[in-house]
């Protein structure tokens, strides 16, 4: 069951709250948040390889706040064009960049400058020149039509109220035969309108 946006929902307020929350995570990943962050969590609860994460720059791994593991569903093809939607500090992009190799490309899209600063620093430190980051609204991707082999994402789509617009935009950029492998949350019970209007629950 997906979270369905209620009538009159303040999407602009949600977007600001999401921005502010993840900017705060970027500034202080060890701060007081009601979701897990960091590589130890990713390995313990999501199935990432801790040794591999520890080999990546901590500037990118410390703020990681995903909810799943997009790499468990299948290996990324070598030389593939990969996009990470809502890339945050870039941990998944760095992993993707290692898998595609320098013949591929990885583009991380995020709207938060603080996260983008970390992501770019992480890619530079890791020496992954084919991993780049762009600021953007994920419902209007700064990408050519049918230019992407694999779209990944981790814990971001649930933060977008207009799922039809989001998925239509992703469909536009994926090549025929390409795929989407991503992590997000599911909700197992019907939520009341008051719960669906609670910005704190969306951003959590």
């Amino acid at each position: 069951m997906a979270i369905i946006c209620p009538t009159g929902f303040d999407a602009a307020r949600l977007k600001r709250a999401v921005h502010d929350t993840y900017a705060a995570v970027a500034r202080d990943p060890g701060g007081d948040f009601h979701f897990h962050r960091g590589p130890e969590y990713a390995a313990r609860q999501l199935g990432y390889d801790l040794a591999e994460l520890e080999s990546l720059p901590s500037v990118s791994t410390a703020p990681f706040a995903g909810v799943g593991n997009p790499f468990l569903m299948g290996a990324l093809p070598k030389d593939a064009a990969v996009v990470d939607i809502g890339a945050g500090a870039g941990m998944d992009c760095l992993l993707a960049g290692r898998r595609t190799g320098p013949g591929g490309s990885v583009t991380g899209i995020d709207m938060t400058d603080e996260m983008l600063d970390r992501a770019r620093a992480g890619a530079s430190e890791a020496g992954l020149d084919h991993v780049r980051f762009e600021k953007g609204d994920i419902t209007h991707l700064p990408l050519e039509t049918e230019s992407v082999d694999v779209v990944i994402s981790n814990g971001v789509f649930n933060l977008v109220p207009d799922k039809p617009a989001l998925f239509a935009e992703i469909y536009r950029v994926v090549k025929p035969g390409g795929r989407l492998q991503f992590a997000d949350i599911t909700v197992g019970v019907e939520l009341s309108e008051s719960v669906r209007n609670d910005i704190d629950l969306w951003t959590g």
Partner: protein
Amino acid sequence: MIEALEAAGFRSARACHFLDSFAGTSKERVARKYQVQGANFMAFK
């Protein structure tokens, strides 16, 4: 999520794994109340 993916044109959309992503957080009780889990999804164009 699956319905929204397929409505956009993706095919063979499915949830592949479910994860207890909120265990140990301050929102664990709320997550259990609303049966909120992390999940890995896949879909093809």
